[in-house]
């Protein structure tokens, strides 16, 4: 079943076409990737899906529900959650508090509830805290809960960001370059962790990557963007051998050379 559909999504910034008629379908329970060189429009696509940008044309459907142009908080309520290329944690809050903020959509207490802290609010807070500790353990950050987010080491900040995104119980998780700034062994670990997320929690994952090598191992389907257009889509093997993709990454002429060498 298809969870997320992007139909002819076009986003312009003044004269610049950042995305041009992008069609991408994400299947439920899949791990899919969007790759492309710098400035290809990958993050712009994420921003369109999560409601930060409203595309000029096209529709974005989540479970056949049109979410185009909804505000970011509404989109999150409907089950889309994301992380950021440059980590954006709530730095001066503890790890647990970061996760608790992630649970915001599933909690109810408002001004009055917060002041009077009745039985229902207390129960809600208690459950949220238990759940937060559970998520913390799940992402391997047990014992780090009371540390300020800004004091965590880099790799753990990435994990905490994912933990925070998971806290809203998303149907689809958008990860924006989760391995940026990591060395090969850390990257490998992160890829295993992402697979683990899908297998254990059944959450659908859409991944942005800059490096092709990284996503080959775990993606079931890869879409390639270049200058705001989708230039290829297919399984990792298909993408690896696609001359358009090689050209986008290595420059014009490289593809023909490679094909000849292969032949």
């Amino acid at each position, binding site marked *: 079943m298809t969870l997320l559909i992007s139909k002819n999504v076009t986003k312009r910034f003044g004269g610049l076409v950042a995305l041009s008629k992008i069609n991408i379908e994400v299947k439920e329970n899949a791990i899919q990737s969007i790759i492309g060189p710098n400035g290809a429009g990958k993050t712009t696509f994420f921003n369109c899906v*999560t*409601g*930060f940008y409203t595309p000029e044309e096209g529709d974005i459907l989540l479970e056949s529900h049109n979410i185009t142009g909804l*505000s*970011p*908080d509404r989109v*999150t*309520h409907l089950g889309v*959650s*994301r992380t*950021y290329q440059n980590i*954006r*944690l*709530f*730095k*001066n*809050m*503890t*790890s*647990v*508090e970061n996760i*608790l*903020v*992630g649970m*915001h*959509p599933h*909690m*109810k*207490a*408002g*001004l009055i*509830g*917060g*002041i*009077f*802290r009745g039985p229902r*609010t207390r129960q*809600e*807070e208690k459950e949220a*805290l238990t759940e*937060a*500790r559970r998520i*913390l353990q799940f992402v391997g950050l*047990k*014992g*780090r*809960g*009371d*540390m*300020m987010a800004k004091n965590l080491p880099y790799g753990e900040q990435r994990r905490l960001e994912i933990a*925070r995104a998971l806290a*809203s119980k998303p149907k689809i998780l958008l990860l924006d370059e989760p391995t940026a700034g990591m060395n090969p062994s850390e990257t490998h670990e992160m890829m295993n962790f992402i697979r683990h997320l899908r297998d254990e929690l059944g959450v659908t994952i859409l991944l942005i990557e800059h490096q092709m090598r990284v996503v080959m191992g775990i993606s079931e389907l890869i879409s390639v963007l270049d200058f705001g257009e989708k230039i290829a889509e297919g399984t990792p093997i298909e993408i690896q051998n696609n001359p358009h993709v090689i050209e986008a990454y290595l420059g014009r002429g490289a593809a023909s050379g490679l094909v000849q060498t292969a032949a």
Partner: protein
Amino acid sequence: METKPSIWVQAVKLGLLGGVVALFLSLVGMVAAFSGRYIITGVFTMGQVLFMAPLLVAAHITLQRNPGQPRSTMFLAGMLSGLTASAVLAALLLIGNNVNLRAMLINASPELYGILSFGRGVGLGVVSMLGVGLLLGAIAAGILLIPERIRGALTRAVIWVLMVGLLRDLIVTVSFRWGPLASLIRQLFAVSGLTVVGAVLVFLLVGGISYWRLGRPKQDAEKVFRQQKPAVRSLILLAIGVVVLLLPLILGVFFSEILDNVSMYILMGLGLNIVVGFAGLLDLGYVAFFAIGAYTMGILTSPELGIATLTWWQALPFALLASFLAGFVLGLPVLKMRGDYLAIVTLGFGEIVRLLVLSDWLRPWLGGTQGIQRIAQPRIGDFVLNTQQELYYLFLLGLVIVAFIAWRLKDSRLGRAWMALREDEDVAMAMGINHVATKLLAFATGAIFSGLAGAIFAAKLTSVYPHSMNFLVSINVLSLIIIGGMGSIPGVFVGALVLIAAPDLLREFAEFRYLVYGALLVTMMLTKPEGLLPEKRRQLELHEEPPAAAVAAD
């Protein structure tokens, strides 16, 4: 490696700096103005403290920055620093006695030269001054050489003698109503400053207590409190409660007035702390809500305007509602603004409110420049709360409620949403936080606290004037939050005490009050930039193993 200037160069540099500070204090007139104020009567004046303290501090800093020097080096460096500093003052003496400086520096008077030369004429004066510099430098070195425990006790004892001597008038006035204790305290003081016996007593008492306390392991007061049995803890809380309740009776009218002011600023501080400290929305027009609370109270209770003559209690809900709504009204147009832009718009809002209450156009309803008089005071049965001491209890009641609300909200879902907005607005929205509702609630909740402060303020003065609603109030409230520590609730209390009570307590310094006050603030921000009581995050994971063990396990 960074090359550090030698201790001798530093001694001269810091000595010059100390000398310039002493020179400054002399030439602005502080030294002369306080030469009549004795710390210990007949022995030592405040004026002498003012020009000697910089010399001592300069030598002390020199030595502290160069630890581990041999004893002889320490003494020589300290004395060099003290000598350099005193040379600056000696130079003033020499120049001043030959050239008339008063054309430019009106405080460079013969009186000042008299003080600086210890009344011995120029020649002997210069020698004495240099001798004092050498002596102070040697003292600075000596202090560092004695064991830490004794040093701590000595320093505290000296500081206390200085403070008690300086605040003589306040202490005598306050202790006036303490019955037998009053006459005892009176014995310690002369007409100006402490008596010699009094000074010795204070010195021994403080020194003794400090010596005893410094011998015990240092403990966090909060931790000690938590370790007590529940019965002991409630007893301590009860004792604090009783003291807080009795404060106006113990301290008398003058201090009750200060207490009222401090409480009013704490009320506003707690409100602005929600807006700025929690939600990160820099609001420079916060006085507007105070004005709205006060004026609503005025309009609804004063017979002068003939609009309504409700009682204070009847009008209170309306005052709170009005400020709450005003919070929304301000919030709406600024939803999309951040940082500096928000600050400017809120500043404008504050000015708009002030100009509206000042305007002739709204005079029939708001009183214009005349303000509103004859505002009702709160009454309980037949009893009217109208003195500073009685109104303190009203402030206290408001404070308890407001502090409770702020404390509860801080660790609630809404509080976390505010902090998330403060940290990163875009991400907070992506976490499902509705920034419109959340921001508006922050503005409105902050506004209601300020409105309450305004309503009590109106009752206290029984009148409101446009000029009480100026920009400086907003700045003061913001400053006290920064001094206390952004986002910290206890910080608001401490910040208000320091910022609002200090100028009143510094009345001793007369026209130099704000100079001293400014110097205090600068020193405070340099030494504790995160505030006096910075915000502490709650421990939520409650794990048993210490973080070190967790690191080792990884």
